[in-house]
């Protein structure tokens, strides 16, 4: 099926007008030695029937295991209405709203999203979203360097609980621009930042994740004040569901965090093997001109009627080019639409219920699992909906054994954080019933005692 509407005659006519002999001539400035004839290793195309069959067979291998994995992406119940509405043609195909008069629906949806996210994070302005939480950290890092011009160190300190994958992504994106990321010292009992935080040189910014990657709750007020006292900006990396229970970044410490970013997936976006997700970013009004991404503003038209439009576009690449705040020229429109509908349907009370039920499920799961010999909590202190557990043996084989019973037991921390030893991060959201939790506990007990018996 052709995706280009021109007929051969159309193409011939256009070539005649511009005086080109054929389509290849339009690419003749590409050196001949860079051209290829074929794509080796790419098999011939399949027709619709064949590909449908192939994908069906592949999909059947997925199964439907019980998922207790968190670590940055969380399984929450998505009301049916969210995707019923989001997949309507008007939303599903709407994209770049550069032509304001033809995009009022999209623009208003994004404006509502921006409003909700600023309220949730306790800050003043939001952009129209970024790709994901990880690239959000990179953008925030670059933003702090631009905003905090007095500090030329390029040094950004990360609290111990910042997601290690986010750090890797931020290093790849921002590392070649003279920005270095270092970790604050850790208190191994709490899993959080150490009591004593001596640094030689003041950093540009301090990044604090709440809840932390290992499920603990960080002392956000102390760290925020510590950073501000040293002239550093504060970047908060937060879970949106948790904000229905925890203090919003805008209220951290005396002055509040300066920038908040995070992964928006928990708000109505399915896990779908890692994506698409979306990153949210909010900040204080005084930083708005340094914020990357699109921003939708509310205004009035020539007749005085309310309307919406992209605003502050002079920050963006298509106007400012190499001096733009970022080269992002998109936003995760569809995911943001879904998130906005999700937040509207749940409301503040609904989101709070999801958060509370998730916390309770995790507490119940933790109690059940730590009652098993060989399983202990890794860190003291409160948690939200994830807890790091120490096992008395390597984690990977245990997870394999659980997987055979159709249970995805958690995230193997011993890979990402080898200093923690045999550590497993478990998560139970509101989707896990008491029966699900009992099943996991019984299965793990079985697996650990069976192994004990075998090796005895």
């Amino acid at each position, binding site marked *: 099926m052709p995706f280009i509407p021109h007929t051969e005659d159309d193409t011939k006519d256009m070539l005649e007008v511009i005086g080109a002999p054929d389509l290849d001539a339009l690419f003749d400035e590409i050196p001949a030695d860079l051209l290829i004839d074929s794509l080796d290793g790419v098999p011939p195309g399949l027709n619709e029937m064949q590909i449908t069959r192939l994908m069906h067979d592949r999909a059947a291998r997925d199964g439907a295991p019980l998922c207790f994995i968190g670590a940055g992406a969380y399984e929450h119940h998505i009301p049916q209405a969210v995707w019923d509405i989001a997949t309507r043609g008007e939303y599903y195909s709407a994209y770049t709203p550069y032509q304001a008069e033809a995009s009022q629906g999209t623009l208003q949806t994004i404006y509502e999203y921006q409003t909700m996210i600023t309220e949730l994070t306790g800050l003043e302005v939001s952009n129209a979203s970024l790709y994901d939480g990880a690239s959000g950290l990179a953008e925030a890092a670059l933003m702090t360097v631009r905003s905090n011009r007095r500090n030329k160190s390029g040094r950004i300190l990360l609290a111990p609980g910042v997601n290690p994958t986010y750090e890797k992504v931020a290093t790849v994106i921002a590392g070649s621009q003279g920005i270095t990321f270092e970790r604050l010292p850790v208190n191994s009992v709490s899993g959080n930042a150490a009591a004593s935080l001596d640094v030689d040189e003041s950093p540009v910014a301090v990044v604090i994740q709440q809840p932390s990657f290992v499920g603990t709750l960080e002392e956000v007020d102390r760290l925020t004040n510590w950073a501000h006292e040293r002239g550093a900006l504060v970047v908060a990396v937060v879970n949106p569901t948790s904000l229905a229970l925890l203090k919003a970044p805008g209220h951290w410490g005396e002055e509040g965090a300066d920038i908040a970013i995070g992964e928006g997936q928990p708000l109505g976006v399915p896990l779908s093997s890692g994506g698409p997700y979306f990153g949210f970013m909010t900040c204080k009004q005084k930083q708005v*001109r340094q914020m990357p991404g699109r921003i939708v503003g509310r205004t009035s038209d020539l007749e005085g009627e309310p309307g919406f439009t992209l605003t502050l576009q*002079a920050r963006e690449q298509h106007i400012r080019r190499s001096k733009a705040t970022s080269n992002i020229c998109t936003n995760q429109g569809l995911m943001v639409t879904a998130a906005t509908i999700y937040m509207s349907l749940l409301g503040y009370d609904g989101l709070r219920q999801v958060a509370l039920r998730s916390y309770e499920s995790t507490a119940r799961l933790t109690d059940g699992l730590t009652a098993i010999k060989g399983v202990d909590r890794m860190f003291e202190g409160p948690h939200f909906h994830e807890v790091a557990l120490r096992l008395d043996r390597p984690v990977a084989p245990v997870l394999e054994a659980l997987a055979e019973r159709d249970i995805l037991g958690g995230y193997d921390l011993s890979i990402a954080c080898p200093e923690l030893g045999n550590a497993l991060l478990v998560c139970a959201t509101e989707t896990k019933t008491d029966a699900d939790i009992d099943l996991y506990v019984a299965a793990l007990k079985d697996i650990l005692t069976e192994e004990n018996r075998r090796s005895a």
Partner: protein
Amino acid sequence: MSELPGDLLYTSDHEWLRREDDGNVTIGVTDHAQAALGDLVYVELPEVGQDVEIGGDMAVVESVKAASDVYSPIDGTVVAVNEDLADDPERANADPYGDGWIVTVQPSGDIDESALLTPNAYQELLDEEEV
């Protein structure tokens, strides 16, 4: 026909300079520049105390359709910025050579006037650009 005061010096990037009695230099953008940009919505000012280099980035003037860099015409240190532009950037449109001044710089050495344009030379540049 844009306004062109005879007591100022100019640059090919459409900035003007005025030497003050105390040796400092006040800088802004010309009438031609403000007309080309359209109504300014924002001016990004440098920090007082910041060092600037000849030809280096010093400020940014932003209208709805463009954001233009303002380069320093001399080497020196920023001693004053026009804070009024924060609330009222359109001053630079209404009165580009007066209330719309942007930065005052203390030169770090002698100013190389051969690198700058007299009013006549700047006018010639404008005439050429219009052709």
